[in-house]
């Protein structure tokens, strides 16, 4: 199925929670989803026979700049049985960054969500084990945010080199 057709299917099923289809940017077109509905949409994409998105290729957080008020979470899905791809995008406000987890749908999302939490501070509601994965547990701040200021010292060691 083409991304346009998948978008049509999702609009028919979920109505207003599917917020739009972004084809303006060069590259992959993406379907914008309301963050609260992301888990339901993903569940539907996996379970429907004509779609069957059985693999989550990549889950990434994006911060476009200091002036932006939202983080985007981008899901790259692929179906091995039907051989088609789709990109989903959800935007959450920076001041209150949380959205439902998809780790019960794809097991690989478990670590990918932990990584996104670790580097962006985005909370995934319903994740069973949301803790830092790449950085030490006592690290302060979320490095991939554009307004991140690196600390001068970490446990007495100089951080900037």
């Amino acid at each position, binding site marked *: 199925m083409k991304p346009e057709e998948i978008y049509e299917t999702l609009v028919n099923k979920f109505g207003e929670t599917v917020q739009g289809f972004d084809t303006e940017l060069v590259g992959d077109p993406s379907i914008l989803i309301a963050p609260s509905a992301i888990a339901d949409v993903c569940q539907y994409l996996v379970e429907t026979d004509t779609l069957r998105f059985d*693999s989550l290729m*990549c889950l990434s957080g994006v911060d476009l700049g200091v002036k932006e008020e939202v983080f985007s979470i981008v899901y790259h899905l692929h179906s091995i049985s039907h051989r088609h791809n789709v990109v989903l995008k959800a935007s959450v406000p920076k001041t209150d960054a949380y959205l439902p987890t998809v780790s019960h749908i794809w097991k690989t999302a478990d*670590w990918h969500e932990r990584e996104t939490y670790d*580097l962006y501070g985005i909370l995934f509601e319903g994740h069973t084990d949301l803790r*830092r994965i790449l950085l030490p547990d006592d690290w302060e701040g979320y490095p991939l945010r554009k307004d991140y200021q690196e600390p001068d010292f970490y446990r007495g060691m100089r951080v900037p080199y």
Partner: protein
Amino acid sequence: MESTQQTESKIIELKPFTDEMIVNMGPQHPSTHGVLRLELRLDGEIVREAIPHIGYLHRCFEKHSENLSYPQIIPFTDRMDYVAAMNQNWGFCLAVEKLMAADETKEFAVPERAEYLRVLICELNRIASHLLSFGTYGMDIGAFTPFLYAFRDRERLLLLFEKICGARLTYNYIRIGGVSEIIPLEPGSIAEQNYLDEIEGFLDYFEPKIDEFNDLLTANSIFSERTMRVAVMPAEMAISYGATGPNLRGSGIDWDLRRDEPYSIYDRFDFDVPVAKDIPELGAVVGDCWSRYKIRMDEMKESVKIVRQILAEGLPDGPVMADLKAVRPPKGEIYFRSEAPRGELGFYIVSDGTPKPVRVKGRSPCFSALSALQELSRGLMVADIIAIIGSIDIVMGEVDR
């Protein structure tokens, strides 16, 4: 007095199990292939839970990338999977090139000669990577000799890489728009002929060696006992955990990006995709450690096949670098994945039209495969953990990025 003694003896009878013991394996354990720490909760020799702790090699590649221009990022990708650095360079360059090609206002194509050189070098690099995986896996299980055999042959490959780009491990050879010209290989020159002859010499030497390796380790009864029917990963589990490459094919799924979503010039070559099958006469089942290992052994033969086809055709004439004034992809975003030796290597790039990216995410195949370890190892013996880690073939530089 008598009554207390009775209760105490009852308590002892009611607790026939041993205490759970917590063992830290790593981060400096030689058989964890880098700095991986496993927190093992053991009941005797049975593993109740193996919790991986990663991040000891975290360099924040993604943060660095946001402050560098696109060509400057390529050396950082070298350090991701340092055993197959050519493929990492290529994965990143392919993503940037695809984004640049999506801009219809500018014309841009990678020269033919560069494409051939890329496939040639990356397939040789795949052999080098699988050789390391084969050698260290043997050593993990307790066979020291395969390691020496593998490194002896890998050394010849590293010398070939050194001749073409000057480095043995971190190559920075594949650039956006072509390949590096630091050591020129003029079309039709004696240097080019010598180089190709040398590769052919290596292939003639190496091809029979694969069978020798198989005799040495694959069919070895101790090795088979340690790896067959151990940690079986069913197909659904492999897909759900995002296992890719040899790990996915080891679970019996016929999927290879080089054939199913051909990029570069892979559609011109004829090669097979090895997929695991049940082998009742040996005792192997689809998805066990042995199947994952065997896929890599078979893939080396396929890589040899591809390289031989390139040598038979010869390298086309022409430049090795596209005529690029600046690497400046348009405003947009792309996710591109390629088949690296350890699986599907994806790069997600968000560009705002400036020479520096806004966001680069490396989707590492080892990161996803390693997350399956916790479920795979539940209820097995401690010694099997080593067999699993070796069979999913991880490189920590890529997991931690």
